[in-house]
Structures are given as structure tokens and as C-alpha cells.
């Protein structure tokens, strides 16, 4: 299954704006997503925005990326411009509907 456009965008931007190579950039974002309980193939721009705010700065700092805060801000701005695709239904969506809260 292909990775989500939001994931691809953040990974590509990280690779081009920092010294991280492709593998490290993707691994960093995957680790951040895993901490957030999210998957690279289904993450939405909105969810990734929260990950950028709350998890990614620390991950970037541990990898020696300078000025992580402004980098994250730039990534967030770019994410906001991404077209929102209709995401595939998640287990949480199904259980929300089946239990009557959707």
C-alpha cells in the first residue's frame, strides 16, 4: 500500500531542508507516527500536523537538526496547502459508527 501524500510531503521536505538522508528522514517521521499511534499510509494532513507540533521537534533535536521549531512551522504551512483526500475508513471510524457515535 502506498504511503499517504502528507507523509511523502513531510519526508521529502525534511530530506531537502536538512542534512538527513532519505532513509533517516523517512525513518524519523515513521518513528514519530508510531509514537502517535498512526500509520504512514493512512495519516491525514491534520493528524500529521499534530505530530509535527507535539512529537517531531524532539525527534529532530535528537538527530541534531538545528532550528527544529522553524522547520516544523514551515512544514506545517506546507501541509496546510496539501489537497485533502478522502481517507480510507479506519477501524476507529467503523467502531464509532457501529456504537452509534458517528
Amino acid at each position, binding site marked *: *500500500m502506498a504511503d499517504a501524500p502528507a507523509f511523502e510531503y513531510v519526508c521529502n521536505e525534511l530530506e531537502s531542508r536538512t542534512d538527513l538522508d532519505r532513509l533517516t528522514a523517512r525513518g524519523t517521521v515513521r518513528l514519530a507516527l508510531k*509514537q*502517535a*499511534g*498512526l500509520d504512514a499510509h493512512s495519516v491525514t494532513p491534520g*493528524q500529521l500536523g*499534530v*505530530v509535527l507540533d*507535539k*512529537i517531531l521537534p524532539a525527534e529532530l533535536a535528537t538527530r541534531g537538526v538545528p532550528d527544529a521549531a522553524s522547520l516544523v512551522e514551515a512544514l506545517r504551512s506546507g501541509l496546510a496547502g496539501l489537497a485533502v483526500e478522502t481517507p*480510507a475508513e479506519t*477501524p*476507529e471510524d*467503523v*467502531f*464509532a*459508527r*457501529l*456504537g*452509534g*457515535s458517528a
Partner: protein
Amino acid sequence: MNSAQLLSGIGGGVFALAETVVGLRLLFLWWRTHQLPELMVGAGLLLIGGIGYPLMAVGGIGRSSNGELSLLALGLGLASIGLGVTALSVFTWKVFRPDRFWGAALSLGTLLAAGVICVGGLRSLHLGPPDADPVATGAFWWVALRMLFQVWYVWTGIESLSEYARARRRLALGLSDPVVVNRLFLWGAMAVLGVLNNTIAVALEWRGLSPMYDPSAALTLAANGLGMSALMLLTFMPPRSYVRFVCRRAAATET
């Protein structure tokens, strides 16, 4: 009817009733949404609890000899249960692993195994001595049927509780609804209790303690059946007071 059969009847009856009520509610939901998950889980629960178990009882599976059985009712009951487990497998596949080939293969395997169990069970009862005990005559096939459920319970338990663990991390970031996160836990816990129930039942039957004849075995399984019923109802038909409790607890955890 002995005390063990009465206990088995109460435990099994409550569970079958819970499956029927939840199954009907989910089928009504499917009528509005036309989505596959509610059709599969609703039909699965109804086929097992609302049609399969009652037909097995009508067929006389608890009676004392093969000669008293109605093989037609038993056959229809077994077929209904087999289709029900298959529908539940499709539910787990489509909800948790929709892009995985092995999920489809497992569901197809469930259907094929259910067919073999149905034919094999009926054949053993048909060919068995008329005065023999039906539970003993078809013992292999009843264990095989339990194993079919066991596979689904294990699979569903792993998927639901894994998703629950991920959903809790999302919840900590404000990306999930606490009620739905709890629902994933309840469904997983129901499956774990199902695994426990089947393991106990098979172990007891292995030692010659059938829940149809042994009160302690029947009591254990009846208690599990009641627990599973409660978890299923809380998952799909939670009372408002329970929903409020979950929300309050989540809010207290945040502060």
C-alpha cells in the same frame, strides 16, 4: 434436564439473546448505511445466536440419544453457525486488514472449514448408534467447531487490542474519541474472554467433564457467557450512563 444443562442453558441463552439483539440492531444500522462491516457483524451475530443455537436446541443436541435428534434442524443450525463465524471473519478482515490477502484467505478458510464441520458432524450423528449420546458421538466435530470460533476470537482479540493500544496513543494527542477507544478495548476483551471460554471448555471436555453434564464446568462457562454478553452490549449498545462514565474518566485522566 439436570442442573448442568440448566446452567448451560442460562449462560448460552443469555449470550445467544445478546447476540440476537446486537445483531438485529446492527442490521438495522446496515439498512441505513449499506456499509459492509455492519452487515457482516450484524448477520454473523444473528446467524449464530438468533438462528444457529436455537436450531441446534430444537434439533435436540442436549438430548440423551442420537435417535431423538432432528438432523435437519441440527444441519440447518450448524450451517447457520458456520456462515455466522465466516461473516464475523469477514468483518475482522475488512475492518482491520482490508488490504491483506491473508485476511481474505483466513475468511475463505473459515467458510470451508465450517462446511466440513457441518457435513462431518451430521454424518457422525447419522451413522452413530441410535442409543448413543450425541455429545460423545460428535465429540471431534464439536471440538472442531470450538476451534473455528477460537481462531476468530484469537484473531479479533489481537487486532482489536493492538488497535486499542494505537488508539490510546492517538487519544493522548487529542486525535481520538475516548468512547470509541474504549469500544475497541471492549470488543478485544470480549474476544479474549471467548478464547478463555473455549480453552476451558475444550480442557474440560478433554477430561470428560462436559458442560452438558458437569455443574462446575457449566457454571464456569455460564459466567464467561454472561461476561461476554455484557462486553458485547457495551461495545455496540452502550447505555448513556456508561458513555458518560467513559467520558468523565477520560477527562479526569487529561487533567
